């Protein structure tokens, strides 16, 4: 009765189906590669740096911080009133498409499409906490 040649494609198909239904299968913002994330972060270096406010605000100590609260930086109203607290999930959402996630933000940037790139980026950002070497 058992015919492996018939079930294998069915199993494979349902795995693919499951993967595409599970939002965390490819989009988990947790557990990224911080080292790779440092490379992805080069895309942000036109406006940001870890340590100083530039065209965009400084990123040291970002995770856990309330959005729009970096002292000395002039945020958009949209950002200060967003009520967001930066976590892996909120960052993943914002960085996918900043202007869609937060209309009115002055971050004029399309976003990071690849879920892997975002996860790596977030992993890198989470290493940049106040007091660490890269933030001194």
């Amino acid at each position, binding site marked *: 009765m058992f015919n492996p040649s018939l079930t294998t494609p069915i199993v494979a198909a349902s795995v693919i189906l499951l993967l595409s239904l599970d939002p965390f299968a490819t989009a988990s913002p947790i557990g990224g590669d911080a080292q790779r994330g440092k490379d992805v972060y080069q895309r942000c270096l*036109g406006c940001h740096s870890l340590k100083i406010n530039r065209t965009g605000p400084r990123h040291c100590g970002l995770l856990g911080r309330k959005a729009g609260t970096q002292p000395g930086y002039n945020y958009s109203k949209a950002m200060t009133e967003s009520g967001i607290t930066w976590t892996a999930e909120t960052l993943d959402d914002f960085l996918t498409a900043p202007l869609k996630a937060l209309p009115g933000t002055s971050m004029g940037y399309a976003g990071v499409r690849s879920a892997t790139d975002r996860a790596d980026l977030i992993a890198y950002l989470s290493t940049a906490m106040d007091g660490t070497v890269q933030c001194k």
Partner: protein
Amino acid sequence: MCAPQSLQLLTELKAETRREPFHDSAIFHTCRLAENTHFSEASLKKMEKSMFTEFMTNGMTRRRAIKTVGATTLSAAAVAVLGGRDALAAGATVSAQDVSILNTALGAELEAIAAYQTGAESGLLSNATLGIALQFQGHHKEHADALMKTVVKMGGKPVSAKASYEFPVDQLKSEADVLRFAATLEKGAVSAYLGAVPIFQDRELAKVAASILGDEAMHWAVLRHALGENPVPVAFVS
């Protein structure tokens, strides 16, 4: 093309070096230098003198001089594209988001101008490199000018340059450090414009962003080349 003050300097330098023929590009760079109000008179003279000696002894070939002028015409074309947004100025449908994107880009351009200033004044650049840095700074000035005018045309309030910028000056100890610093900013600028292209409501503005992107990418490549690195390490920028 040249302000009277810089013409005066040109005359003095001619007398001092006792050399007559100036290439267009030498005059171009000197004028841009002299017009730069951030320089003190003393540092200006020092830089001009060294650049002149370089230009006149080694000489920029005629071809290179023409190329330099060609590059300015390219960004002038971008200005023309921006300047042609008259329909927008009439105020039919101005996207506030487009204005905001332009303004953020303007902020980054103003920072780039200041960064090249820091590099040029570091005293770490050879004459040849200084010429390149000043030319690139000139492009950023053109980008900023075009973006600023467009923001105004669209009824926005353009951001102005910060009173001072925080650059990692303590890490700039050699010419290579300065070049690497500039290359990082240019690469970042490429990514920033790439991220702006798809989100403009007005496709003409997307085209302008792409035009500036191309210019920044050339800067990035030239700076990498000057560093002895592979000038074009990738087939796609990100």
